[in-house]
């Protein structure tokens, strides 16, 4: 399996993170996206006429959409991540995968504008990203009232991994996450998953390193809390 990859791309990071969480083996083939614009080279356009990265190849299979890559990796390594317990859960996952495209074209484009001289009207991009972030905040907040935090149910799915990178990197595009407490708790849960890997701009949880002496178990605290106590 070869991932045509760029270290600063949130969409490539989606796939790297999913593979790391699943323990899937993958070879990274770096693409000189910036400043070299190699994603628009004849070789890369032959692989993906849309001129986007990442691209994932596995034998004769070529995938050009990062959410399709998440599905492929999850189905092959641990189908629990697909979130197919019920028809409703399955549809919810599909809906968040589509939503993640809105994050790419708003928060992702704002970041590319602010960091790498990317194109676009920054005010329009930030307004669209803010609407998406508010929608996500409301949804996670509703999940928390049900005693959960992940987008499609009681455990993380490919929906969470699809949305996480562009949300976590939103401050790079001038979109601070201070107004979104539920989003920040959700990000913390994702960063605490076994096998989590970082990318530039997304740091690991230093505070979760082993400390001398007893440490409160934050997962324990979450799962044992009775949601009715808040009512």
């Amino acid at each position, binding site marked *: 399996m070869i991932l045509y990859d760029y270290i600063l791309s949130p969409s490539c990071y989606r796939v790297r993170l999913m593979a790391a969480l699943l323990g899937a083996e993958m070879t990274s083939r770096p693409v000189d996206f910036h400043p070299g614009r190699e994603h628009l080279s004849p070789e890369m356009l032959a692989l993906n006429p849309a001129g986007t990265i990442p691209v994932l190849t596995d034998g004769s299979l070529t995938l050009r959409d990062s959410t399709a890559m998440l599905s492929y990796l999850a189905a092959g390594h641990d189908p629990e991540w697909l979130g197919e317990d019920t028809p409703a859960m399955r549809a919810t996952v599909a809906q968040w995968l589509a939503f993640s495209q809105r994050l790419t074209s708003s928060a992702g484009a704002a970041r590319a504008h602010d*960091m*790498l001289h990317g194109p676009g009207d920054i005010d329009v991009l930030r307004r669209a990203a803010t609407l998406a972030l508010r929608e996500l905040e409301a949804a996670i907040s509703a999940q928390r009232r049900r005693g959960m935090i992940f987008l499609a149910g009681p455990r993380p799915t490919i929906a969470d991994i699809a949305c996480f990178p562009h949300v976590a990197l939103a401050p*790079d595009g001038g979109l601070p996450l201070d107004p979104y407490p539920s989003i920040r708790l959700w990000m913390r849960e994702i960063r605490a998953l076994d096998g989590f890997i970082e990318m*530039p*701009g997304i740091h690991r949880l230093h505070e979760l390193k082993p400390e001398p002496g007893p440490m409160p178990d934050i997962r324990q605290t979450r799962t044992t809390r009775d949601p009715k106590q808040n009512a």
Partner: protein
Amino acid sequence: MSVGAMKDQWYPVGLISGVTEEGRDSLLLGEPIRIFLDGGTPAVTGEGERPLPVELRYGHVWTCPGTPTRPLFDIPEADQLGRRLVDVGVCRVRCSPLRAVENFLDIAHFPFVHTDILGSEPHTEVTRYEVGIREDVDEVWATKVQFFQPQAAKSAEGGITTDYMYRVCAPTCSVLYKTSPPMPGEWDVIALFVQPLTETLCDVWPWMALYDDDASMTDLIHFQQLIFVQDRSVLENQLPALLPLDPGMEIPTRADLTSVAYRRWLKRNGFTYGAQLVAA
């Protein structure tokens, strides 16, 4: 804010390889500039199409919005055979251009920001090093800097104690020299060229001259982009936004000697665009 003595200094405004016929608009010390190809040669104009002096060196287009008081600084290693010259490309940061340089001069943050690459806990000690202003060339130099690094460069395998020298050769340009893992007797050259757009916004153009025959050019570019973008969010959150040149706002420690020398040198030369001069 008056631009002062910084008006007469040299600044990078783009990659030579990235200049086009149609050109690109940018800013330099708050003044609108345009970078374009004029008969196949890169040219830069300021406000009212005022032509600005141009130098083509170290992969970048250089210009000066005023009257250059001295030639563009020399990096002799750029001409040494066997080195790979790496144009890393731009990264825009919402911070003072002086803060971008100051962060580059700091070693103590390596284990915490570039964890497991340029530093790692518990190897956090910055040992004693020497800092001075070389009067003959009017540059800040830090020498005999040593730091333990788990992966000092793309070509490094396993942890090594890396030797460093730092040099500030212009108000927004710094060059660091570090042990070259494949050529232990030589220094790898890593430069940070900063284009001050405004006092709180800059385009950073890292550039390198390395001994490394194995890594692909893309790998070398990505390694440096990885390192710099790890710094970016830290830089955008530093307060106050302007770099304080007077004591009181920030308390330096021994590890910050280079930063202290840099600030003194800026103040002495009147390089205050992006700086704050009020004592707390």
